């Protein structure tokens, strides 16, 4: 089932004009605030009637100005998770969840979102993160053919975001319908989306598989630190603090804040400025790797050290004062202590 959107709409001086397709999986609608992302989602939901265009899901036309088709909101069967949750304040969580129907699958959705303990509370007694989880559950229980999420994390602080993201991850993997996910936060987009639709000032910039779009339109905040490399590997185990042991070409690395299961792929970034080199035989620290100095390069008062660990290569960069005691020379064996940044998660 694919969502096809093609619409034009005028709001005062603002001209919205976008056309894209959203296949099953998460399609991120990405752009700065005021780009018209919410208007697009509202048009898909039926809350906004575009001046012109066509909207269809899985071949069924929901809106076609030229043909005079405009399926009313209540008949579109879309799950809409609003930025501000919009839970009914006078109903308990249970009755909020059941509002759109869906006695079937109730227990499954409740446990997917981890809201078993909240069912008899009213929204006023929920935290921001709990509210959003309930809002997601309510939308899912509608048994939608399409899930619309309008910045579901925007009103939450970093901790609450971290609390919800794992549920969204699971959702993205377990729900077999297109999810249109509005965001202006690239780390969320990278983590969740498979398709990317970029909008700016009401106009479509680009759309398609996320890797291709990002290659054509690099996002400024996303530029990796100079000389940084990306390391990917397979998750082998988790420790008690949920840090993941990832088997990489550099050897086993421990990563915090990784979601997924044993056997999944995880990626991290090695920033040369955060690599600490020490002399010695073996260090019992986590993320310590035995390396051989491969090359040296001086630039001003900075030294960049090319390193080899087995077949893998990376570099470390430091001030000249810190480099001196290491007595650096090609072929020297050292220990590198890494501070790997989990990717798609901890990026600036």
């Amino acid at each position, binding site marked *: 089932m694919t969502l096809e959107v093609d619409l034009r709409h005028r709001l005062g001086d603002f001209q919205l004009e976008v056309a894209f397709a959203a296949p099953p999986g998460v399609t991120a609608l990405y752009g700065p605030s005021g780009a018209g992302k919410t208007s697009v989602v509202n048009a898909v939901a039926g809350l906004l009637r575009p001046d012109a265009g066509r909207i269809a899901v899985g071949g069924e036309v929901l809106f076609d100005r030229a043909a005079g088709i405009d399926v009313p909101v*209540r008949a579109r069967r879309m799950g809409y998770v609003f930025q501000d949750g*919009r839970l*009914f304040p006078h109903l308990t969580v249970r009755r909020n969840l059941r509002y759109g129907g869906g006695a079937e699958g109730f227990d499954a959705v409740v446990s997917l979102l981890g809201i078993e303990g909240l069912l008899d509370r009213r929204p006023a007694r929920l935290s921001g993160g709990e509210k959003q989880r309930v809002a997601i559950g309510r939308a899912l229980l509608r048994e939608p053919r399409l899930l619309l999420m309008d910045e579901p994390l925007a009103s939450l602080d970093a901790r609450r975001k971290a609390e919800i993201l794992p549920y969204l991850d699971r959702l993205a993997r377990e729900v077999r319908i297109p999810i249109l996910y509005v965001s202006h936060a690239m780390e969320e987009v990278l983590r969740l989306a498979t398709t990317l639709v970029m909008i700016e000032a009401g106009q479509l910039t680009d759309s398609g598989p996320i890797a291709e779009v990002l290659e054509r339109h690099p996002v400024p905040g996303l530029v990796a630190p100079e000389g940084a490399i990306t390391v990917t590997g397979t998750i082998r185990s988790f420790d008690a603090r949920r840090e993941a042991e990832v088997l990489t070409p550099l050897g086993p690395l421990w990563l915090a804040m990784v979601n997924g299961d044993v056997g999944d792929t995880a990626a991290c970034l090695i920033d040369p400025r955060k690599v600490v080199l020490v002399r010695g035989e073996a260090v019992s620290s986590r993320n310590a790797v035995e390396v051989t100095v491969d090359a040296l390069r001086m630039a001003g008062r900075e030294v960049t050290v090319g390193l080899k660990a087995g077949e893998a290569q990376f570099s470390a960069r430091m001030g000249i004062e810190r480099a001196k005691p290491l007595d650096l020379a090609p072929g020297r064996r050292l220990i590198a202590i890494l501070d790997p940044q989990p990717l798609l998660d901890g990026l600036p």
Partner: protein
Amino acid sequence: MISDFLGPAEWEAVRLSVRVSLVATIASLPLGLFVAYALARWRFPGHGLLNGLVLLPLVLPPVVTGYLLLILFGQQGVVGAWLAETFGIVLAFRWTGAAVAAAVMAFPLLVRALRLAIEAVDPGLEEAAATLGASRWRIFWTVTLPLIWPGLLAGIVLAFAKAMGEFGATITFAAAIPGETLTIPSAIYGALQVPGQDGVVLRLAVLSIVIAMAALAVSEVLARRAARQVAGG
């Protein structure tokens, strides 16, 4: 107990007043809700005119309102003649006429309270209900109405109190016929015109106060319960 306290004529005035006010309030509620919802949520030509019409009885001298009612709903009136001919309904100088007068006078207060309550409801909640498949009717019953409940109660009590106290329009349109349209205010006014009726006046005045206070207390308790429910628990 009350019949010991009141004479039969006074008791009749009290019962009549309560009946007229209850009927006036309950009968005007559906239209009041509709008008308040339309004023709060819809943009349409004539919006300002409708608002002015609704508020008119609040600012007109009640005698003028009563006179206008007489012109419209009197036996010779445009609407009154048609009602009498088609349905056999006569309003002027009947208790039903007193109820109509009370309803018209209380209507602005009812609509104002309801409009404020409806405007306080986030339209986003109604949109959310629509995305969950609810019809307009279901949205109104399950979202809008429960959320305006405290305002609705306040409006009902205000309208009931106004109807209980209505005098000018009622006496103009329905006169003060004992057992038919002689409500408490008319009875008090009548008693004041006759020497030696101070006791009647005092008893009816005390009773008016008691009824008004009781209505206020009931609405206060219900509104608090509703507010508590929304706030959590």
